[in-house]
């Protein structure tokens, strides 16, 4: 029996656990306290609640924690509902909660504030806002199919920019399915490449009504948008997370449509004004150019181009005149010199000299002839005298008186002596009127000789 007095730890703990589990008060405990040791985990959450004097371990299973709208933080005062249980393995009691709400303010508001702070920290609000296209061709509108929002947008767009195509992507904008619906429609729009701008919104309502526009998933999907988004959620006083992450926020759907579309009549006016300015400035510029060109065209030179060469005309004319005069004077000088010399040359013509010499030659000729004639005459006289004298002394004159003489018939030599003859010799006897041939018959010498 004694031995049976000792319980095993398991026996005791099992006993105690049954006490906890079967106690009707501990089945559902409404507990308020301050969160301690909270470290967010992916699945189940383990943390503590405490007050000034006590502390209790808290377990919140993942399924329950998913429903919590806000992000628990250490030090935060919360109201929780749960069952107190004993955890046998560690021997510790704990409260397993399935609901947790912030103490004091509303859970939605807290959740809103927490998300706003979180997103602000991430810089989603301060990121550069995309500029809205001035002339959107296609505008995607994500809102409820029924209601004033789409109506107001259509009316305004048609009035300002009939060219803009409004395409409605009907979405659930209230209730539990709203966030998913909005996200789905946004993503659907993103898949089209030809939208220029998105208007997302709904009409006014309570914070619960507007809550889908405060959902983080909606905000993050909007931030991921490739095109600018205009938000118009609730009234002007309501500011949702969607409004904060949108590129532009419009107070009303009408305002959203005005932001999205240009006033075409103003655009036309500006186009026409531009054209007028274009004409005017071009006209003015043309006038300016025309003036500049005219200034050159009307220059003195173009009016009197002959000035380019007129000076030369005169210069050349004078030079030519001098050239002619100089040339003439030059030649005249030579001409006069030549004439003078030629005249003198004419005066020294050797004709006179020729004539004089001719006279001299003729004179000499005459004198020569005369002298020769005289000489001949003289000689003839001299010869004539002698010849006449000879004739007077010719021995033949004796023959003429009757004498005759003998001569050798060959040599003509006078034969004057007997000894000159030979008997029989033929000789010639010269008579006064001729000659005869004779033979020597006989010869005899005279004695006295």
């Amino acid at each position, binding site marked *: 029996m004694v031995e049976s007095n000792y319980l095993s730890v398991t026996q005791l703990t099992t006993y105690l656990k049954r006490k906890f589990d079967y106690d009707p008060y501990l089945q559902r405990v409404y507990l308020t306290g301050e969160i301690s040791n909270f470290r967010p985990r992916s699945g189940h959450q383990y943390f503590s609640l405490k007050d000034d004097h006590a502390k209790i371990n808290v377990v919140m299973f993942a399924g329950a924690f998913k429903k919590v709208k806000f992000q628990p933080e250490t030090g935060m005062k919360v109201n929780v509902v749960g069952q107190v249980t004993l955890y046998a393995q560690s021997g510790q009691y704990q409260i397993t909660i399935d609901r947790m709400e912030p103490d004091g303010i509303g859970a939605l508001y807290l959740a809103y504030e927490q998300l706003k702070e979180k997103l602000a920290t991430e810089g989603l609000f301060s990121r550069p806002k995309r500029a809205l296209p001035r002339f959107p061709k296609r505008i995607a509108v994500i809102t409820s199919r029924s209601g004033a929002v*789409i109506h107001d947008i259509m009316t305004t767009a048609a009035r300002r920019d009939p*060219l803009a195509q409004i395409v409605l992507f009907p979405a659930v904008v209230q209730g539990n399915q709203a966030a998913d619906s909005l996200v*789905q429609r946004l993503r659907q729009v993103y898949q089209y490449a030809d939208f220029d701008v998105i208007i997302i919104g709904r009409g006014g309502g309570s914070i619960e009504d507007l809550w889908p526009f405060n959902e983080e998933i909606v905000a993050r999907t909007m931030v991921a948008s490739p095109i600018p988004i205009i938000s118009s959620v609730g009234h002007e006083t309501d500011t949702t997370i969607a409004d904060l992450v949108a590129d532009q926020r419009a107070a009303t759907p009408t305002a959203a449509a005005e932001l999205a579309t240009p006033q075409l009549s103003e*655009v036309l006016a500006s*186009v026409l004004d*531009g054209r007028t300015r274009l004409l005017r400035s071009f006209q003015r510029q043309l006038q300016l150019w025309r003036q500049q060109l005219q200034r050159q065209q009307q220059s003195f030179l173009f009016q009197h181009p002959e000035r380019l060469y007129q000076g030369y005309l005169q210069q050349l004319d004078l030079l030519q005149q001098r050239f002619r005069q100089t040339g003439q004077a030059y030649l005249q000088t030579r001409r006069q010199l030549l004439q003078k010399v030629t005249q003198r040359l004419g005066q020294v013509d050797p004709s006179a000299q020729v004539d004089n010499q001719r006279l001299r030659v003729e004179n000499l000729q005459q004198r020569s002839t005369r002298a020769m004639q005289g000489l001949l005459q003289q000689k003839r006289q001299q010869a004539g005298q002698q010849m006449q004298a000879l004739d007077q002394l010719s021995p033949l004159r004796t023959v003429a008186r009757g004498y005759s003489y003998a001569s050798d018939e060959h040599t003509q030599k006078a034969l004057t002596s007997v000894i000159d003859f030979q008997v029989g010799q033929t000789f010639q006897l010269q008579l006064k009127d001729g000659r005869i041939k004779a033979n020597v018959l006989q010869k005899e010498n005279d004695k006295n000789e």
Partner: protein
Amino acid sequence: MSEPKKSFEAQLDELSQIVNELEQGNVPLETALAKFQTGIALSRSLEQTLAQAEQTLTKVVDEQGNVSDLADDDNQQAK
């Protein structure tokens, strides 16, 4: 209409830029002439686009991507 690819906005910007340039002067004549002609053409193109603007009907796209005109009732409300 030499360049139909340019968006309305790009044309508007180009017109505006041309107007500014010509108003500032100092543009060579040939450039100015070309710009002037371009500007005039742009202004006509823009004017025509604006003048020919016809109201487009609002479309509705459902989750499956089916496109339909917005119900007559809705359109009537819009008018």
